């Protein structure tokens, strides 16, 4: 049985762990509010961008002359997967969920005999994937030093991806990130960004809309807008990811704090009981000693 001192030390160490998790929870809660606000404010832009693109897509009559970024280059041999995770751990299942989603997708691709290329954004995803899929990882990007991701960073990533696409280094590009639904629920997403996958439903609805006047020509607009759209989608993924990470961390830390509390209660009861036992034992010794006299 543990001695009193052991128990006291245990309680002390659990208490200090609880302090840390509590502090992390509060920090995450404060950051979450900001991140959530950013994610929600960013949504109108990406939604509008999407609707403009789908409008334009509908107005294209000749599929063959359409920009490749929009309709793809007709092949689906080489898949590029961009896995976006956090740079920090201790956020519950956040990183694992993305990686699990990505892994299932990777296995399907490999099974189908297609070529796989991986870019990881955020160091945690890289750590989790490199053991099994290390030879497929062609690049790892990390914005660890930055406090806040801005559109500039997503532009950087985008230009890299587009350059690769133009050099025909891949045919289809998919990004993996966590969509922020609420503080306690985040959904790992796989979104295909090249070629753009549009919702069949929206296409049906858009078709009876008025036809647009374009200035300059449709093709030129598309050519300029498509990279922008990809950058917007990636930026959106960044924002959603940031909000999800904080939400996930907050609930993970909340759980940890609660568990620590429970553990402290149990240990305290244990401690008191053994303390009482020691006292009783001493009393018995004294009394029996006195009786024998």
């Amino acid at each position, binding site marked *: 049985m543990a001695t009193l001192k052991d128990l006291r030390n245990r309680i002390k160490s659990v208490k200090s762990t609880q302090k840390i998790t509590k502090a992390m929870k509060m920090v995450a809660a404060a950051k979450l509010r900001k991140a959530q606000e*950013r994610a929600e*404010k*960013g949504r*109108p*832009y*990406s939604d*509008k*961008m999407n609707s*403009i693109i789908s*409008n*334009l897509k509908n107005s294209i009559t000749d599929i063959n002359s359409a920009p490749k970024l929009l309709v793809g280059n007709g092949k689906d041999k080489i898949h590029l997967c961009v896995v976006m995770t956090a740079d920090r751990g201790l956020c519950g299942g956040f990183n694992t969920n993305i990686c699990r989603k990505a892994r299932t997708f990777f296995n399907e691709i490999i099974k189908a005999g297609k070529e796989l290329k991986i870019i990881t954004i955020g160091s945690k995803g890289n750590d989790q994937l490199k053991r099994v899929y290390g030879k497929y990882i062609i690049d790892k990007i990390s914005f660890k030093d930055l406090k806040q991701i*801005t*559109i500039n960073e997503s532009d950087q990533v985008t230009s890299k991806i587009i350059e690769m696409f133009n050099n025909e280094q891949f045919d289809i590009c998919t990004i993996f990130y966590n969509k922020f639904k609420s503080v306690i629920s985040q959904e790992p997403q796989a979104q295909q960004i090249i070629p753009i996958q549009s919702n069949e439903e929206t296409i049906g609805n858009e078709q009876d*809309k*008025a*036809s*647009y*006047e*374009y*200035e*300059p020509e449709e093709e030129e*607009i598309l050519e*300029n*807008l498509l990279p*922008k759209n990809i950058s*917007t989608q990636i*930026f959106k993924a960044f924002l959603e990811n940031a909000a999800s990470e904080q939400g996930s961390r907050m609930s993970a830390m909340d759980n940890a704090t609660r568990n620590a509390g429970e553990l402290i209660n149990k240990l305290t009861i244990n401690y008191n009981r053994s303390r009482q036992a020691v006292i009783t034992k001493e009393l018995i010794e004294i009394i029996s000693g006195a009786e024998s006299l």
Partner: protein
Amino acid sequence: MSETIQLDIVTPEKKIFSDKGIESVTVPGIEGDMGILPNHIPIITFLKSGKIFIESSGKQISYFISDGVLEFNNNLLTILASEIYDLESISAKDIEYLKIKAKEKNSKQDLTDNEIFLANKFQEEVELLSSSK
């Protein structure tokens, strides 16, 4: 038919402006300045750097935009801007930032004619802006 426009100005980071009682909007379209009144035909166009004037019930609001995309349909006007500032509240810091951006854009290599034109235009506008402040 409604006689006013619903205008939304959004950036990747947030919604800058949203109002539905707008009477007219003047924007720097890529092929020349363009005024938009209610019931304009649907249009999608790029914007170059310059000023946006919004007129609603006698008041005039103006913005400085670096570049963007405009969509108008069914009296719903959406401007997707990469950088946009309210001319009333633009600070010296913002102008400094724009200046750096303009320089960056201008110093890039292998630009198409169109891009060179836009970069020059951007620099011009920023300088105009800073001298008027």
